């Protein structure tokens, strides 16, 4: 027990005396949450648009006012001829141009039909579609207003409800993703680097020629990172609830418990990496290649897995962070209980046991 404590104290000293490690440990979660929360978002807000109004009547002014009032658009320019629109798109000043033909109001109320041209910059297709949709819905609401109480003989009125995330906030999707990414990086990468550092500096050699069971060296390496990862989970949760307004719908206890499970899985993975690498650089590269990229690509938090070809979907099953991402989304966002994430949890348990077994099998009591 004294020995155990001596190892743990030593490990904490290593971490606390290394500013680089500390910055990664505590800076990364905060930076990532803020980055994803405010900078890297795929929501469309305050898109710059331009108006070319040939009609300048009451109806067109009303619509322009509505567009300007919406939080999706900012009116950047008012044009007087089509060449200016062209120029503005070329310079990248606007994402969307709205063109009202002459006599807009007249044709709308006298001929019961009027057209408006929407020109979007489709060099980014997703944004273009989104912007056009927002604009269309504003036009539609104006149309409804004009129709007033009149009812058309046949109408289908879709009643749309966005479940779990009514405001369609990007944060609901990336908070689980960031949690998966950070826990994996800290638990797996930092642990594997810490173990490999002992090999690289030769201290492992001295510890091997001692009565200390090698497993103790490894386990005590991992324990401080369990604690630090747990602090990180808490930081991310506090930040996302208070800063990003992402509520925790399900049980906090379950969420923390599942996070611990994932931390163990990631640690096991880190141990495995440390048994097959001999230098800190290789361990770091291996962690980044094996952990970070697949987490970004295959966990489904950036690209929907359903859209991937079958072989890629199959690969995604092997990525532990995918399962954790699902669990966090289900528990935190959808508010589901343990029963619903049982399958995912069992898969993580199995992966953890698997990695530990392989790591133990690979672990050397000698130098080669």
């Amino acid at each position, binding site marked *: 027990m004294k020995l155990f404590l001596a*190892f743990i104290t030593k490990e904490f000293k290593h971490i606390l005396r290394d500013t680089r490690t500390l910055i990664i440990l505590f800076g990364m979660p905060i930076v990532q949450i803020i980055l994803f929360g405010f900078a890297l978002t795929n929501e469309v807000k305050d898109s710059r648009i331009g108006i070319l109004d040939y009609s300048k009547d009451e109806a067109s002014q009303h619509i322009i006012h509505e567009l300007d009032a919406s939080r999706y658009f900012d009116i950047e320019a008012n044009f007087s001829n089509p060449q200016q629109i062209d120029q503005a798109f070329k310079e990248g000043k606007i994402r969307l141009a709205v063109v009202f033909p002459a006599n807009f109001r007249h044709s709308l109320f006298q001929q019961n039909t009027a057209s408006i041209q929407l020109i979007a910059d489709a060099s980014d297709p997703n944004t273009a579609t989104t912007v056009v949709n927002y604009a269309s819905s504003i036009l539609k609401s104006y149309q409804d207003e004009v129709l007033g109480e009149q009812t058309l003989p046949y109408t289908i009125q879709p009643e749309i409800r966005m479940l779990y995330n009514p405001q369609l906030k990007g944060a609901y999707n990336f908070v689980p993703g960031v949690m998966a990414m950070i826990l994996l990086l800290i638990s797996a990468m930092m642990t594997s680097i810490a173990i490999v550092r002992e090999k690289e500096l*030769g201290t492992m050699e001295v510890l091997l020629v*001692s*009565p200390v069971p090698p497993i103790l060296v490894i386990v005590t390496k991992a324990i401080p990172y369990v604690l630090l990862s747990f602090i990180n989970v808490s930081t991310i949760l506090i930040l996302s609830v208070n800063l990003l307004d992402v509520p925790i719908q399900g049980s906090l206890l379950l969420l923390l418990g599942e996070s611990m499970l994932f931390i163990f899985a990631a640690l096991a993975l880190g141990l495995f990496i440390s048994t097959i690498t001999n230098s800190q650089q290789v361990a770091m590269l291996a962690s980044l290649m094996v952990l970070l990229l697949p987490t970004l690509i295959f966990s489904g938090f950036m690209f929907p897995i359903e859209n991937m070809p079958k072989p890629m979907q199959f690969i995604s099953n092997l990525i532990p962070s995918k399962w954790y991402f699902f669990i966090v989304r289900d528990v935190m966002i959808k508010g589901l209980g343990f029963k619903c994430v049982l399958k995912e949890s069992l898969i993580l348990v199995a992966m953890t046991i698997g990695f530990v077994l392989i790591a133990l099998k690979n672990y050397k009591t*000698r*130098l080669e």
Partner: protein
Amino acid sequence: MNAIIANHLFKSFEKGKIKALEDISFEVKQAELFGLIGPDGAGKTTLFRILATLLLAESGDSSVDGLDVKKDYKAIRKRVGYMPGKFSLYQDLSVEENLNFFAHVFGTTIEQNYHLIKDIYQQLEPFKTRKAGKLSGGMKQKLALCCALIHEPSVLFLDEPTTGVDPVSRKEFWEMLKYLKSEGITILVSTPYMDEASLCDRVALMQKGKILDIDTPVGIIEKYPKKIWSIHASNMYALLQVARAFPNTHTCFGFGESHHLTLNHDAEDYDAFCQYVQEHYKEPFQIQEITATIEDCFMALS
């Protein structure tokens, strides 16, 4: 019983391409200070790692304290002290923290075996809060020795402990080894410095994975078959050229401040040699007969 026995050890790396050890056999008696002398790449570190249970030999067997290095490696690890060639303590921990940690590793305390490390530790004490990475080379090695001694090992493996250490610290280090020997600890030490060989009880001269000779330092020097002279002049390089050009020169090597010379027929060629150098070197030079050093013996054997 011999403290260390190595029996026909073979070891190669990279699928046999590099032969690190070829048929290494030797025995070290209890409380003996045994030196492995040889240049870099002689296989000293590999031999240490095999005896310290870190590597397995391809063939041959060896034992430490009567325990087989392969079967009883766990028991051996409890009773040996090992100091690798590279500084292998925690650079970000202080002197005291390192020592305390290794005391814990071996299930002991600094106080329990303080008598063994007292002399060295007193030198380290003024720096005990300093990080190990910030110590001088000599201090680092003293600390490493302390850490290797903390559990009162019966056998001590020291792989090049004085490499990169200043002469004063080297001297202190060897005095420490003598003291430990007097306490009954068997010490196997390697060094590339030939002058340190004379401080051992017995030495094994190693090169390219083979042992060239094993004897006491005096014994090795006495075996030296030829007369040996030291020559000196103002232009050492020209002197070396001339000395080597003499037809009956056996060997002539630069040895720091002078050249060491052996002649094919020893004393018979002496006059002819002096005459030859006078004719060709043209400037004054000194020559005097000396007793061979371990390094001369090493050169003669290899």
